[in-house]
């Protein structure tokens, strides 16, 4: 596959469970493609060199910096952004916990952090505080601090663990996690 520098390449991907199409020059970063071509403005662009973590999305289920990926690299991949979390305008358990624990103020960093948390909790369903802090070290928050986020993530892990043990509630859990 070749995409010349001066041409816009057609890109098709699964965004939050739906097939979406757009066009991008080879040099277009994935974050800009998601925002400006597909309207996923929950993707926030901060430092553009992989340090701040604001632009983190899931690429085939894996938390990745969308400023360090090209849109053409996401062709025929599955991308999930913060827009995937709420269902029918109801925030999912993670978002509700962030709200409850005052884990955000301005919210600029939050959408990336939430996506990291999504993959992290799948890989590490019963984390300790040190593991949560290690995961959050891949993100910069400059107004709230991290204590509320740590508490929110640990609480969601406990809640999901408890629901796992109550099989009749399994369906409700799955519905909050798309």
């Amino acid at each position: 596959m070749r995409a010349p520098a001066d041409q816009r390449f057609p890109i098709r991907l699964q965004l939050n469970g739906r097939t979406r199409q757009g066009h991008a020059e080879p040099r277009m970063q994935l974050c800009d493609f998601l925002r400006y071509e597909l309207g996923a403005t929950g993707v926030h662009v901060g430092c553009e060199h992989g340090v701040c973590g604001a632009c983190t999305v899931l690429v085939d289920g894996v938390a990745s910096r969308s400023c360090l990926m090209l849109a053409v690299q996401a062709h025929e991949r599955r991308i999930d952004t913060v827009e995937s979390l709420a269902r029918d305008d109801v925030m999912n358990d993670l978002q509700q916990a962030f709200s409850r624990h005052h884990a955000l103020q301005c919210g600029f960093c939050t959408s990336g952090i939430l996506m990291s948390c999504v993959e992290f909790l799948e890989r590490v369903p019963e984390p300790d505080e040190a593991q949560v802090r290690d995961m959050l070290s891949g993100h910069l928050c400059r107004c709230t601090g991290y204590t509320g986020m740590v508490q929110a993530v640990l609480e969601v892990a406990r809640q999901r663990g408890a629901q796992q043990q109550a099989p009749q509630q399994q369906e409700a859990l799955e519905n909050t996690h798309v």
Partner: protein
Amino acid sequence: MKPAAFDYVRVASKREALEILAEHGEQARIIAGGQSLMAVLNMRLAQPKVLVDINHAGDLHDLNVERGHLLVGAAVRQVELMDRASLADEVPLLARALPWIGHFQTRNRGTVCGSVAHADPSAEIPLCLVTLGGRVVLESLKGKRREVPAAEFFQGVLTTARRPDELVSEVHFPLADPAVRYRFREVAMRHGDFALVALAACIRDDAVELGIGGVSDRPVLRRLPRGAELPEALNAFAWSLGAQDDVHASAAYRRHLVRELGRQLIEEQDHARAS
């Protein structure tokens, strides 16, 4: 903060990548995980004409044990090594160093060979490769396949022995020697930041191989005695590295870290827990 324009080529095999490198030379850059190169492109510190994406080259994803080495192909991600349960037995130094590399979000995409090819003086994987006496495999379309010792491969800041038409196709880490204890330590402003000083040690009963990253313009390895002569040898090693002052740390502090953490790393009791 947007890259300059380039042609993008997604290759399906190593040979296809080598063909493009043969055609375009230093005008072409290989992209795998992109965790270093994309930042460089975004800041326009590099402006290649052609970007060669090797993520879909099936023959660059090998991760095998062969001839006493762990062979890591060019497109193998750092997370794949971290998830490899046998790594702690195969290459324990690498298993200890991997959690220090960036963050889990960057290890998800960053590759082992990409870190080697980038050659940041403070990077953990080049330091491990030098300390263990590993090798870098360089391939080109017309030239011979070269296996370069890591200590010769790294030549300075972001500078290596790779020729413009060559691909870092594999790196080889020697498997663990049961008579050696492997240790890793790092000091950074925050966990996951670039190391002020990174230390990797292969400890034998009579001597130590100590590798230092983040101080000189490349990882530096030195054989040191154990026992009463160690402090003097560490001091001489620290001064030999040509430490520089920068915004994060003074040269004197870096030398102090080499001496003090070097001594701790070598003399401390065996780790109570696997790290």
